[in-house]
């Protein structure tokens, strides 16, 4: 069961990263919000996968199963919370306020950039029907 959950969270984390790269091309407002942002967002999921997101020049890229040397901030999150967060069951600001996400690094940037997950959630919350 734990293996299933670990696989699911790895695929979901990758899917969210992929979705963010695609949304840049599909949603002009999202692209506009990214203008001027330069950030490396490291994801560390407890007992689960790592990945980091690169935001630069209005574009997003990502690397799965990777740890960046000097991320702008790191999102530390338990597997169950990550699942809820990535599926849009809890918003990033809610998760931060409830202490379910620990941010290391530039907390101000992290707070300003919660729109990335929130905008994705607008499109993906009913993904499975």
């Amino acid at each position, binding site marked *: 069961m734990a293996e*299933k959950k670990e*696989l*699911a969270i790895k695929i979901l984390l990758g*899917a969210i990263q*992929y979705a963010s790269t*695609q949304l840049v091309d599909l949603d002009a407002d999202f692209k506009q919000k990214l203008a001027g942002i330069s950030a490396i967002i490291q994801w560390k999921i407890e007992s689960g996968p790592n990945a980091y997101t690169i935001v630069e020049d209005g574009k997003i890229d990502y690397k799965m199963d990777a740890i960046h040397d000097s991320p702008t901030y790191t999102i530390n999150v338990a597997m169950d919370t990550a*699942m809820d967060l990535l599926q849009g069951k809890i918003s990033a600001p809610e998760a931060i306020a409830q202490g379910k996400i620990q941010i290391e690094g530039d907390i101000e940037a992290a707070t300003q950039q919660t729109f990335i997950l929130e905008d994705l959630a607008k499109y993906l919350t009913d*993904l*499975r029907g």
Partner: protein
Amino acid sequence: MSVKEVLQTKVLLYIMGKGLEEVSSTNEEFKEEFEDLDATIQWVIGDNAKMYLKVEGGKFTAFMDAEAEEPTVTLTVEDYGKAKEILTGATDGTSAYMSGDLKLTGEMAVAMKMGQVTEFIKDALGELMAP
């Protein structure tokens, strides 16, 4: 066609493709079941979503937003809503084919194998694919 439909379709293709990459390299039952499968399976949905799966000895590799040069089989769905139903399992592939929502060109036998593969991946991804 809305941004939501296109993005959801792309993400569902990603989940299937990357899920198959993971499962086909780690799940012994899967490896045994599909070890004889060698094929290139192209998905084309609407005008904006495509992905192909390269399968060698049952090991899947997904290529997002790409077209294969010589696919063994091509699965085409024009309507994003229908594609979502197929990719989430709400409609099975055979029914979609019979109704004309899913069109196939190439080797039918490989397309039929994909039906079994899809069931496997839904089970393997558990909570992620649960409604």
